[in-house]
């Protein structure tokens, strides 16, 4: 199994942490609104790709960037990062809030993206299956909303949580609030998703309590070419909960391999 090499870059005066593993076609993974469980669960992807996992500004080991106030700002941030890394075409995977960023990026950068994976993405308004307001979940219940398998936090989240751990989460929640305090969706997204031409995989945990899998058909109906994979018994943190999540990305890439 590969391991990550870590490096730090500066983008617009803000220090960014970047984890990389493997070789081959670049796969940019955009994480969700928290980094507590880390990204080791993605390492199987490094057997097939040059896996690139940046920490968003305001999350994990990256510094805060007060200029980022919207998903579009994250989109521009990642355009800067792709330039800095001199990446042309790439596979794009986004989970949760990162899925919203990935969809936004794929709308404007369609021709560069060879494959798109949206894993339990934020971003669409599906009134019949609403996204839960993450800011109002009582602290004690957050873990149960994030995962169907609480054992994924073993060794990653102190029990009981230390003030430092809580402060890390508070910082990430603050960064999230800067972007989606008002809406957990972009009212315009549905209008532009048709511009995504890359083969797209919609990946979801069947038991997602935060962003219900019931939102998947809305995405599928708006995307030109979308496969779907629903993981049984799995919640919102699907990559931590099931090895099948990363495996589904590899399978999808192999099925659509034209490169």
């Amino acid at each position: 199994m590969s391991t990550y090499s870590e490096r730090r870059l500066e983008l617009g005066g803000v220090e960014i942490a970047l984890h990389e593993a493997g070789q081959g076609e670049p796969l940019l993974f955009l994480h969700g609104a928290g980094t507590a469980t880390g990204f080791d669960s993605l390492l199987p992807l490094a057997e097939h790709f040059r896996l690139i996992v940046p920490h968003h500004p305001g999350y994990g080991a990256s510094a805060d960037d007060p200029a980022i106030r919207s998903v579009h700002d994250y989109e521009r941030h990642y355009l800067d990062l792709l330039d800095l890394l001199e990446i042309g075409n790439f596979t794009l995977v986004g989970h949760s809030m990162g899925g919203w960023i990935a969809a936004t990026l794929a709308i404007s950068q369609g021709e560069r993206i060879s494959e798109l994976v949206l894993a339990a993405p934020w971003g669409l308004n599906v009134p019949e299956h609403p996204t839960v307001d993450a800011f109002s979940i009582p602290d004690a219940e957050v873990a149960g909303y994030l995962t169907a398998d609480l054992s994924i936090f073993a060794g990653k989240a102190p029990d009981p949580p230390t003030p430092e751990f809580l402060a890390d989460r508070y910082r990430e929640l603050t960064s999230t609030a800067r972007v989606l305090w008002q809406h957990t969706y972009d009212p315009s997204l549905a209008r532009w998703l048709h511009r995504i031409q890359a083969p797209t995989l919609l990946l979801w945990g069947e038991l997602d309590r935060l962003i219900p899998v019931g939102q998947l058909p809305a995405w599928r109906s708006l995307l030109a070419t979308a496969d779907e994979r629903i993981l049984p018994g799995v919640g919102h943190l699907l990559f931590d909960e099931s090895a099948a999540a990363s495996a589904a990305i590899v399978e999808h890439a192999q099925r659509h391999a034209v490169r």
Partner: protein
Amino acid sequence: MGGGSPETVDVAVEFDAGYSVVFTPIPVQLRAFADLREKCAARGRELAGEDIMLTVMAYVADTDAEAEREGRPYMERFFSWFHRVPPKYMTPPGYVTRANFERLASTRALADAQESSWEDMRAIGRIAIGSPDTVAETISHWAREAGSSRIMLNMTHANMPEEMTVKNLTLFASEVIPRIRTRTAVAP
């Protein structure tokens, strides 16, 4: 201006306002007052006693023992139940600095789902409880120590019945205030 964040001191300085800080250990309050005094002096403003406001939770009865027997259960209920606001709701995202968040999350009488003792409560609350002499002496000491001449009083605690509240107010007015006047003897 009022608030537990060190940053609030800077806002009070900027706006030439008075300042109060609640539910914070007294030594931390005194450091905030000293910080305020120093920063105001740097701008040529000398603080008056009324610029430093103390918030006091008071309960007075004929004797110390009686006050504690009557008042303490309600003060404990205030902290253990009425004030048991999860940090999440006291600190919306972006509302406080990291240092301040960690302080809140480590203060046992404020943190979510942590049992706090009477000592924990007294460490963060200015709880003046006892006979008229005890309460007057406690508040006078705090006022002198902080250089404050403005005391804000909480006289009803949690679900304290009305008759106890009225008794507390009446005793405070008739027995405690004259004693504080004598002790502090601040020139009008």
